[in-house]
């Protein structure tokens, strides 16, 4: 039964007509899959997939002091972004714990679009408002946007059929206002799949038309609609963290191997600076690693990682990898064990394992990401 309290996106009707399996996700009714999630995953790797990401939070930060307010509120330095450029960044608590990971788009000199995870939009909105001072306005614009992602090696060819924008000029992590099928969108070259691709912010009333135009343009290119299940295995193969799994309030960006998002070199204070600076100077106690399980049993979130039979860490995300043909996982493990496992190399699976419901399944430690798109 579908919970009637769940929010519908401007595209939920389209998903229903496509026969999607819908699921509750962060308060929204979202497509989990349309048919086989494995087929959707492989289509994105080989051709392209179309995703509804309208649950993501859009927060607009505007005004003469917007750039300074974001420099203070976030770990990155949005003031250094040129208009039209974007950056992956984080917002931390004063103790350095991660409140969310974000993409910040500088749309104009005094206009920034902050895209937050659906489950954290309220937290991010409040934190940005609390941390803002001077002449700056922080507004939740989530309901004013639909967000459609077109991802995969065929994405640019498909999109080129329905827009006059010069896509070769749209760099990775850049955004442009553009017309797609006659509708005004903000077109960004970003994604969460490990493939080339675009994210299109549209007006809610234009979402169905843009979705339909992309579907028609992609018909001869192997484009399929893809749900959250495929999105999760795609991002896992690409080694991309998910808030609530690899990221959370008890973790700092350094734990996830993402210390680069903390710009300790930027001028001025920012929330979490002293805690993060202290952590940057200390030896890591744990490390986010990639595991490939040798059997076909799948490590899941929360399962223990074992070294010589002793618990040395926890799986944060795990799934059967359609690309590798084996179960894969990301896990936090003790830093010294990660080092020993790397040194042991091929011998590590004799000592490294995941406790899959009572049986120790041998695992190999591999560098992240599991998947690199072909150059």
């Amino acid at each position, binding site marked *: 039964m579908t919970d009637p309290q769940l929010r519908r996106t401007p595209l939920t009707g389209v998903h229903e007509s496509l026969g999607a399996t819908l699921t509750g996700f962060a308060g929204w009714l979202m497509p989990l899959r349309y048919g086989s999630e494995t087929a959707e995953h492989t289509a994105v790797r080989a051709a392209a997939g179309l995703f509804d990401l309208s649950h993501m939070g859009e927060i607009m930060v505007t005004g003469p002091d917007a750039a300074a307010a974001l420099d203070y509120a976030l770990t990155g330095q949005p003031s250094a972004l040129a208009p039209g450029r974007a950056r992956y960044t984080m917002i931390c608590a004063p103790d350095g714990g991660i409140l969310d990971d974000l993409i910040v788009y500088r749309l104009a000199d005094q206009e920034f679009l902050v895209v937050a995870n659906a489950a954290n939009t309220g937290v991010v909105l409040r934190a940005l408002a609390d941390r803002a001072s001077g002449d700056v306005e922080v507004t939740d614009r989530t309901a004013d946007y639909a967000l459609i992602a077109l991802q995969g090696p065929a994405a640019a060819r498909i999109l080129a059929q329905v827009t006059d924008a010069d896509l070769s000029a749209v760099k990775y992590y850049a955004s442009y206002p553009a017309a797609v099928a006659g509708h005004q969108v903000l077109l960004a070259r970003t994604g969460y799949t490990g493939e080339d691709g675009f994210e299109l912010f549209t007006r809610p009333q234009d979402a169905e038309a843009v979705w339909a135009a992309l579907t028609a343009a992609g018909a001869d290119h192997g484009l399929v609609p893809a749900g959250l299940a495929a999105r999760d295995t795609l991002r896992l193969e690409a080694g991309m963290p998910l808030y609530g799994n690899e990221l959370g309030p008890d973790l700092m960006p350094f734990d996830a191997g993402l210390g680069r998002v903390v710009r300790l070199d930027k001028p001025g204070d920012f929330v979490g600076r002293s805690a993060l600076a202290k952590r940057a100077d200390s030896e890591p106690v744990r490390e986010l690693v990639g595991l490939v399980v040798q059997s076909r049993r799948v490590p*899941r979130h929360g399962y223990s990682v074992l070294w010589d039979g002793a618990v040395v860490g926890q799986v944060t995300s795990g799934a059967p990898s359609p690309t590798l043909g084996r179960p894969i996982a990301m896990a936090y493990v003790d830093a010294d064990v990660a080092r020993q496992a790397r040194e042991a190399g091929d011998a590590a699976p004799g000592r490294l394992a995941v406790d899959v419901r009572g049986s120790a399944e041998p695992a190999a430690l591999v560098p992240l990401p599991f998947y690199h798109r072909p150059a």
Partner: protein
Amino acid sequence: MTAVPDELKYTREHEWVAITGSTASVGITDHAQHALGDVVYVSAPAAGTKVTAGEPCGEVESTKSVSDIFAPVDGEVTEVNADIDDNPGLVNTDPYGAGWLFKIALSVAEGEQPPGLLSAAEYTELIAGEE
């Protein structure tokens, strides 16, 4: 709408049972495979294993989750579907046919119905609340 063939019996844990003589073929229902998503691995009880109705005797791994397989009847496993190992997707594409999982020699005398199984109508009613 998911398929619930009339001629089969069902469990509350979403297994189906086809009884022929003293042998029961067992699989998971169309409703179950749909809820699980793509099945990537099935751990079925080996031939010779004694199973007890209502107790877990194997696992089905899908992309998103893992679920126990519950023995629908008392008896001894006589045969396991070897095709599933190479092609677990058969559970999705043909759950009542090529996607069968294993066979059990029934403990009850031939011609006697094992207890506790649901009819197709009862199972349809059970899953109506979930769809």
